[in-house]
């Protein structure tokens, strides 16, 4: 086989890694390189160093160590039976590339994953080796996200947690039966067990009391996973329930949703169509409602039709339109939990309302200054100078609140 030059390898192994939606570099412990021998810092908020025309953020150098794989997951471009070009980085090549990119301020760190070569243990070992070199030989203090190989020895996972900020194992398919069919070598039980072990480790590393000696750090940015949308026939409510169960079970920081995207050299077992981007967007919104707005997965299910979220309007609005008896909410007296359910009011807006109303009685125009658009909020609130009257219960409210045309893609040039 011809030896590929480094740039060609980078092209192959970045292309192979791009179907993983995770890019976050946030939520880890705060640190810098003052007094250190190398470079790198993390300051809580993640940084997106670039955006590609697909609107996704480029924060980490997201690559595979290799795209050779002995597994044959039908939805994956790297599956064993695919005819895609193969490449493999050496451990040192990844270390050098990461440092070279980091020093030029292109990235926040590394997100390293890999196809399964030889065995789960061997593959995990290689991933850990990269992280270990970066941390120990180069005193690199930037962000590292390592993919967990669920089948690998728990001791390797433990070691990975010492060097990495975040670990992730992807569930990929919302339906377990589909995983079995489409990824025959994978076992959802093994993946969940690996996530369970990570949760126990993360919790054990949390200092119990101030006066106790600090336990060694373990993946301070926690763990995440990804679900592919539109490859296995799972409905939105199934997906949302799945997420709720994953958040509760494994203390995940994030569940990523990735619209199934056509891949080159694809298998006949999968739908070949453009990725359902709007559906993905609505699922992220629903996920947000569960994590920050106090919605349960059942409530989100209530606002769905036949298990599918409304594509024309967001899930919060859909819920409110179905639950009109609970509106309008008085912005001057309403409880925080109810204000959070008003369409168009975000967490920040609600916090500001609660702050200001201690000093002033709010009018409609005040609310207008606190949110993105008063049009959406108006039917669901009362203020000092405003009551929606029959608007809240108007039969055509849904039609009035639905954006008439999808915004046209902005022209660039």
């Amino acid at each position: 086989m011809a030896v590929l030059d480094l740039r060609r390898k980078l092209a192959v192994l970045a292309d192979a890694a791009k179907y993983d939606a995770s890019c976050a570099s946030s939520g880890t412990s705060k640190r810098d390189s003052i007094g250190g021998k190398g470079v790198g810092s993390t300051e809580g908020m993640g940084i997106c160093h670039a955006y590609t025309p697909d609107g996704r953020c480029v924060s980490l150098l997201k690559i595979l160590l290799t795209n050779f794989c002995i597994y044959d997951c039908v939805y994956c471009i790297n599956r064993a039976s695919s005819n895609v070009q193969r490449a493999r980085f050496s451990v040192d090549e990844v270390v050098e590339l990461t440092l070279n990119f980091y020093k030029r301020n292109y990235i926040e760190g590394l997100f390293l994953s890999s196809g399964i070569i030889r065995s789960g243990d061997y593959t995990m070992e290689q991933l850990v080796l990269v992280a270990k070199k970066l941390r120990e030989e180069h005193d690199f203090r930037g962000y590292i996200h390592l993919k967990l190989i669920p089948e690998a020895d728990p001791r390797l996972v433990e070691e990975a947690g010492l060097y990495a900020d975040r670990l992730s194992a992807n569930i990929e398919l919302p339906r377990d039966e589909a995983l079995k069919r489409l990824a025959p070598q994978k076992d959802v039980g093994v993946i969940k067990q690996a996530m369970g072990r990570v949760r126990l480790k993360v919790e054990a590393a949390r200092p119990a009391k101030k006066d106790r000696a600090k336990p060694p750090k373990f993946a301070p940015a926690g763990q995440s996973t990804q679900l592919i949308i539109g490859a296995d026939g799972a409905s939105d409510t199934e997906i949302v329930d799945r997420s709720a169960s994953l958040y509760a079970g494994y203390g995940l920081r994030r569940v990523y949703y990735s619209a199934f995207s056509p891949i080159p050299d694809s298998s006949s077992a999968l739908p070949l169509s453009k990725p359902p981007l709007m559906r993905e967007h609505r699922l992220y919104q629903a996920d947000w409602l569960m994590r920050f707005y106090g919605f349960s997965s059942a409530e989100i299910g209530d606002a769905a039709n036949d298990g599918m979220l409304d594509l024309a309007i967001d899930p919060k609005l859909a819920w409110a339109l179905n639950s009109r008896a609970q509106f309008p909410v008085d912005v001057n007296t309403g409880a925080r939990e109810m204000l959070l359910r008003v369409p168009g009011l975000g967490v920040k807006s609600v916090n500001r309302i609660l702050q200001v109303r201690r000093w002033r009685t709010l009018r409609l125009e005040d609310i207008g200054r606190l949110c993105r658009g008063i049009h959406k909020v108006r039917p669901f609130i009362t203020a000092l100078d405003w009551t929606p009257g029959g608007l809240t219960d108007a039969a055509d409210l849904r039609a009035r609140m639905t954006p008439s045309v999808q915004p046209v893609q902005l022209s660039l040039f």
Partner: protein
Amino acid sequence: MRVATLANETDFDGWRAGARALRQAGVQPGEAVFRVGRSASGLFDDGPLPPPPDAGFHTPRAFVDLAQAVILHRSEDRFDLLYRLLWRLKAEPDLLRVVTDVDVADALERAKNVSRASHKMKAFVRFRRIEAADGERWVAWFEPAHRVLERTAPFFARRFPTMLWSILTPDGSAVWDGETLTFGPPATRDMAPSEDEVEEFWKTYYASTFNPARLKLKTMQGEMPKRYWNNLPEAALIRELTAQSSARTETMVAAPASAPNLRLAKTLSRIGRDHAFDEGFVPSTLEELGQAVQACRRCPLWRDATQGVCGAGAKQAPLMIVGEQPGDQEDLAGRPFVGPAGQVLDEALVEAGIDREDAFVTNAVKHFKHEPRGKRRIHRTPLVSEVSACRWWLDAERRLVRPKVIVTLGATAALGVLNRKITVTQARGAVLTQPDGARVVANVHPAYLLRLPDEAARIAERRRFVEDLKLVRALL
């Protein structure tokens, strides 16, 4: 008109001194003028200098923080806005909390823009490496949206303390010599290097990580506004990547599914796993049983649980202790009774004089039944149908361990073992002999002890729990 003069565009101390003096002199917001640059006449164009500000003059800390951000905004009227706020604070000390106020909202918006500009600077500065006589240097040319150089440069010092770098901007320059950060005069683009060999790699990465099937230009432009494109090497690719995207997507969608690679397909058949659950299978050892339970689909509880948790303990234990089902911790760890209820049980066993080594500990139901609630999982009692389905596994464990005595903890455990419902509080203490010769004693579940709200009741119930275990010891 009264005029206060500032040393430069971001001279906060100068603005503060001027504003204090003006306010002290009673100069109304509309009458005060702030001007940047040297002025021969000093602080005021006309009128005598006012007396120094009195000591009682106090501006809230929040205002100082806000003003320090707003002053970096490129708008001309920022000094006036800040002076107006300062003026109003006298009569309205809580003004800054009223974020709906027009002036406050305006100032907050500008502070937000400044903070965004600083954040974008952290993101979009691109260093280029040059070889100098005494080693390598890193230089960046950058055009910030607002005057955030001094505010943002310390970030780079924390991140790259071992590199010698400078950031050149039209507002000024920042230089890090490995120990200290210094600020110098404005610079021009031609003072920075025009290329770096690693940029080609970076562009390769940028182009490869882009998924043409997901074009979302508006999102991209919202986050990476065009004003920054000039200084981003990768931005040169945007036009081409965008133009090709729909053609690339259509090719992928239209391409017929390809024939699988045969050489690799062969490897696969060797490693294929079979997880199917076979109804006719009878485990002959506890290890086999522990593996087989992972494939069990006799009831729906496997779906949301992490794993099936089988019993643990001595293989030929004379005593089998049966609980209800694994809890949150047991589900994650894969072992029974490791959570809080397990601790209660362990302590009680010690008190009753029972060696845990003599016991085999298991549950009536092998998967954790629960409901997600935010970041926690709330325990749910299994249904009779689930207990019945799972009895298959419990019976298998009983066949393999052959205990003399079985203690059931709680109603579900009793149902699992006896195959009928009993009232634990009535049945406890009685010894029931089973067809296989095992003697069964019912007890409450240790989690019940943990849930009792009343301290006295908890102590009494715990004592009873231990007493009942002592009775068990006598049977062994």
